[in-house]
């Protein structure tokens, strides 16, 4: 796809806008693309990056990524007019709410991007959204205003430099009336959420991360275990989104 823009959002988080042919109509929120780094000679493994936003009419796809290593550094250097090889959309994204009622969306760090496309889709269906986004500090916050157009947003930072201090679970308080929870972020956050909502009948969906090779379900590199640890699930193919009852968090 063609690079249309590549902008810095925070000190180490960037957004890459791509245009061109892509199976947009197949995209569900929470799916990812597998990005080829250079021509793949030095870096044979593609990098999994969530679809942060996708517009079938304007034919654009946006990826929000934190620069952590060689692959994401290469992504940061891409300039408008260059092309990038992305494979996708891959995996299974967030399913539509199974029950009526308000929806809670919780994101942490670079788990936030896929939740933006999700919030857009649910907002368009007139679903009431509570959105809680957790970041390290004020310099780490991105897209708070964009999310603000789609639902009621609470920002939390670990150091309290903006929004509520502390972890996202603390921001939830005693309120437990949501019908559905969608979440993406560090494992520790997903676990804390599951514990927080223990005993309620909220339906929870979580998006998981693992190191990947093929990205399409063929190599069994990226597995996690199902709830009773009797079978493996491939995060790239069966996930990355799972119902939190289905897997071992």
């Amino acid at each position: 796809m063609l690079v249309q823009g590549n902008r810095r959002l925070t000190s180490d988080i960037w957004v890459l806008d791509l245009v061109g042919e892509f199976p947009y109509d197949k995209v569900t929120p929470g799916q990812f693309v597998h990005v080829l780094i250079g021509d793949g000679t030095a870096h044979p493994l593609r990098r999994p990056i969530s679809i942060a936003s996708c517009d079938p009419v304007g034919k654009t796809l946006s990826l929000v990524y934190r620069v952590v290593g060689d692959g994401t550094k290469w992504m940061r250097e891409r300039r408008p007019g260059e092309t990038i090889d992305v494979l996708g959309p891959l995996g299974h994204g967030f399913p539509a709410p199974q029950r009526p009622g308000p929806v809670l969306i919780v994101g942490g760090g670079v788990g936030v991007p896929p939740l933006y496309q999700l919030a857009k889709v649910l907002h368009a269906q007139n679903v009431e959204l509570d959105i809680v986004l957790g970041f390290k500090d004020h310099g780490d916050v991105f897209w708070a205003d964009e999310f603000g157009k789609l639902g009621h947003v609470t920002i939390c930072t670990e150091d309290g430099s903006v929004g509520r201090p502390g972890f996202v679970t603390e921001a939830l308080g005693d309120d437990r009336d949501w019908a559905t929870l969608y979440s993406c972020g560090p494992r520790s956050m997903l676990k804390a959420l599951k514990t927080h909502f223990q005993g309620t009948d909220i339906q929870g969906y979580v998006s998981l991360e693992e190191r990947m090779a093929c990205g399409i379900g063929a190599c069994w590199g990226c597995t996690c275990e199902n709830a009773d640890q009797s079978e493996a699930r491939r995060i790239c193919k069966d996930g990355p989104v799972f119902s939190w009852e289905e897997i071992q968090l």
Partner: protein
Amino acid sequence: MSVDLRVNLGSLSLKNPVMPASGCFGFGREYSEYYSLSALGAVVVKATTLHPRLGNPTPRVSEVTSGMLNAIGLANPGLENVLSEELPWLARQDVPIIVNVAGDTMDDYCQVVDRICQSGLAHAIELNVSCPNVQLGGLAFGVEAAVLRNLVEAVRTVCTLPLFVKLSPNVTRIQDLAIAAASGGADGLSLINTLIGMKIDLNTRRPVLANRTGGLSGRAIKPVAVRMVHDVAKEVRLPIIGMGGIYTGHDAAEFVMAGAWAVEVGTANFTDPYACPRIIEELRSFMEAEGIKNIEEIRGSAL
């Protein structure tokens, strides 16, 4: 000029010499969403064991410069599921099937090979005696000539299909293992499996892979693999399937010149899901450009 890509590995006839390598292609379903598997010479499926295996803890893959490490740990759905679900599906895709078999004991290997042969769903067996990841099995069978010969002899008694033995590169003299496999009754040899490696994360100061070590594959191992195919081809007159870092038609031709009759493509599938059909076309173009009508014309030219 029209070139003939067909190749006979003993009694196993392939329409071209390129097939995906075991463990890098599952049982074919995922890549069939990208192209028709009937374009391939054959499909070599994931190692199949008697019982289902979950494999090693994650992380179990890691990138290294021009290669990767894996410690999947022979995760697979087990013989029964492979026979009832995977092979019947693959058998409908109009492509020869080579089943890669692994086990913890000689008896495991024999039972799996016996059942696969009896099912009538496969065209050849590839015995994985070289997987470096599983503490119990794998390694022991593939590194000592006498042990390997015993295993191949035992499997031979139940194996009614062409039997390929896949050699480990983690040995002192790979020719000795090739000779042992041949004298045990192998119909052919595949090589190489992965080289044992390690990567350390500078932040955690610990190995990246939960298993600590993993098998190195991809472009980084190609010169080692070419040398080993050459060394084995010099000493053993059996059909050889060569592999290790093949990404292009030129790479495939290089293995043929080293003495391979056919090739497998592993890690390249992850970089480019269309790697196998692309390599077939590149090999065809190379032969056309060089005026090579039949792959046999260049086989072993470097020996």
